[in-house]
């Protein structure tokens, strides 16, 4: 620097030193991806065909417990919500691609899924239970299904929990969907339908009753892109508030009280975002 003659050069040299320093020590930009908290509006995946949980009506509007929970969370986050139907098989894919921001669709938290997406919540812990005809008195629990006819829905795992996990010798009767199981039950073709209690409650009519003998935990989570810790924590906070301010109780009663299902009104144990 001593050899410099012009002030211009000196100035340029100083500027270069400073620029060098800027380049050398520039702050590493936040590597984390986008968060749902940065958005104004959320696209939320729900079920289109699950009575009481997520159902698309004739006007194209979605209704159900999941939909109300999702709307509450979006409101607490200060976002507007748009609902789209997300088939069960595409929930991880939709979240990973970013075509939906949240999934609230009877989406059970499992370790395999957690390798691909993160979960806020669970917002409810459903239990596998059994639905029988109202006049049935011989079935008080899952063990009593021995030798009885149980509806087996193609593609669902619920019957395995009875026949394979509990090793109960039931007679399986195939059906294409739970709606078909319900009509079979009413028609006397099967003696029982066994799956998540909230799903059963959605189908409940005065002719049918839930046994209220739960034998598994299905933790319904709010699917969110992996790595969005801030978003996931905000969802958990919203769910905590949903239970604290009584909204959860109101919504559960609104959708499921008439089924006679024993409901839980206290906040579930969260999965954790980290």
């Amino acid at each position, binding site marked *: *620097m001593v050899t410099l003659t012009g002030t211009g050069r000196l100035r340029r040299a100083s500027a270069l030193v*400073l620029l060098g*320093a800027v380049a050398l020590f520039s702050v590493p930009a936040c590597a984390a991806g986008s968060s749902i908290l940065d958005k104004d509006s959320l696209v939320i995946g729900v079920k289109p065909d699950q009575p009481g949980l997520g159902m698309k009506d004739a006007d194209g509007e979605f209704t159900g417990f999941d939909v109300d929970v999702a709307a509450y969370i979006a409101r607490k986050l200060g976002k507007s919500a748009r609902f789209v139907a997300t088939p069960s098989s595409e929930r991880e894919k939709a979240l990973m691609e970013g075509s939906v921001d949240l999934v609230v669709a009877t989406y059970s938290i499992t370790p*395999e899924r957690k*390798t691909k997406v993160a979960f806020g919540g669970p917002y409810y812990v459903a239990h596998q239970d059994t639905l029988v005809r109202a006049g049935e008195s011989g079935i008080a629990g899952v063990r009593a299904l021995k030798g009885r006819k149980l509806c087996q829905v193609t593609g669902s795992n619920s019957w395995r929990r009875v026949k394979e996990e509990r090793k109960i010798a039931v007679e399986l009767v195939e059906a294409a969907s739970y709606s078909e199981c319900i009509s079979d039950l009413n028609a006397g073709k099967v003696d029982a339908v066994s799956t998540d209690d909230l799903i059963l409650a959605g189908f409940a009519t005065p002719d049918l009753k839930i046994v209220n003998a739960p034998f598994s935990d299905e933790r319904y989570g709010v699917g969110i892109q992996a790595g969005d*810790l801030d978003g996931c924590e905000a969802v958990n906070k919203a769910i905590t508030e949903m239970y604290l301010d009584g909204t959860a109780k109101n919504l559960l009663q609104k959708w499921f009280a008439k089924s006679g299902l024993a409901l839980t009104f206290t*906040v579930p144990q969260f999965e*954790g975002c980290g």
Partner: protein
Amino acid sequence: MAVITSTSGPAPAPIPPPGPVAAPTPASSPQRTPRLRTVPGRIRAGAGVAVLAVGLLSALMGVALGHAGDGLRTIGHTAGPQVVATADLYYALSDMDAQVATVLLAGEEGGPSRKAALDRYDQRRAQADSAVLQAADLARGDPTGQATVRAVLDGLGRYERLVSRALLLDEQSPHVPGPPSQPALDAYRQATDLMRLDLLPKAYNLTLDSGTVVRHAYAAESSAVLVGRFWVALGGALALAVLAALQVFLARRFRRAINPALLAATIVVGVLTVAGVLVLQRAADELRVAKEDGFDSVLVLSRARAIGNSLHGDESRYLLDPQRADTYEQVYLDKSQSVLYVPAGNLDKYYAAVDRAVAAFPGEADFLGFYGSEADRVTVPGQRETLAKVLTHYQQFQHDDRRMRQLATAGKKSDAVRQAMGASFGAYDDTLVELTALRRQAFGAAVAAGNRALDGWDLLLPGAAVVAGLLILVGVRPRLAEYR
């Protein structure tokens, strides 16, 4: 930047007032106007700017070091340990419930184990009380968190009443090891439902919440330290540029060789800048190690321990309440899978899968869950071996669980009770505590190393800045004297 450098050059650039406060005027002669037209005026201005630049550098460094200190304090001494304490809340609560189940299961004949379980129940209750206080402290400023803490406190009171009733009813109808009388069982059912469905989830969520508090504090402080490091480098470069310009100006104006005092000031500033950048880097690194290798892991292992303990409770409850045995068995499997996940639809498959996964470790870690995440992050010496030990004991615990369930299904109730109260859970829990201690050590060491790196800077920094400032004044003083 260009404006400031130009003040030290002789060019008559548009110059902000060079700070009459900072420019010292050792000579008592009255100031001439306008100051920057004369050589002594320019020398004073240059020296003033140089001193200001050094002052700015030390202020920037002081702020950055302050953030580093705050970060280490939050993680290492206040919020971090508090979070671990709230994780103990879950453990204490779930162990209370497990001890009640043990008491009810032990019956008359299990006198000593009944007494021991009651003592442990009292101990855990005291532990839970103090953990609730920690959680309340952490939840300050968070109304949702505070409401949750209050709900836990209320619930704990109700729980204790229900337990007292269950124990009283149990004493009224003595029984052999196995399920207690129906009234006692009914009372216990209410208590355990309150605990498992209401209190434990809330306690767990509180731990997660307070983990969030620490994560945010860490993110804020560590990015402040990194940003501070950048500003320190920039401030150092600026001070060096001003000093170099002053040096050049003096050399040309007075046709002299290098001004030794100014050179010394330049060296002091250069060393201070480099050392400052390095120490901030070091502090940021230690902060990261403390958070990621220490704190995060300790939290995961505390959760594993808490859930593991409620696993053991589920064994007792399985034997205690035959009508709900199916539910407790399913819950046991779910919890086992959150501790160590291997794909398995039922317990028999799970036992076998655990055998395979543990046999393959440490060659490969083909499992998820808490231990999966611990196996993914092997950073501490001895951690892999200790984790292997934990897994072996976990496998033994699962073996014993299988045996217990076989005995229970075969109708050998008291053998099953003995099996459930066997030593394998304690042995497993001890190795887990050992692994946690290893992580806690790494955590403490990183916090201490970070604090050591920052040690002395509260004196060193102002000292070096004052020395550099004095050297600048000493350097320009003889030149100013020539005009007197």
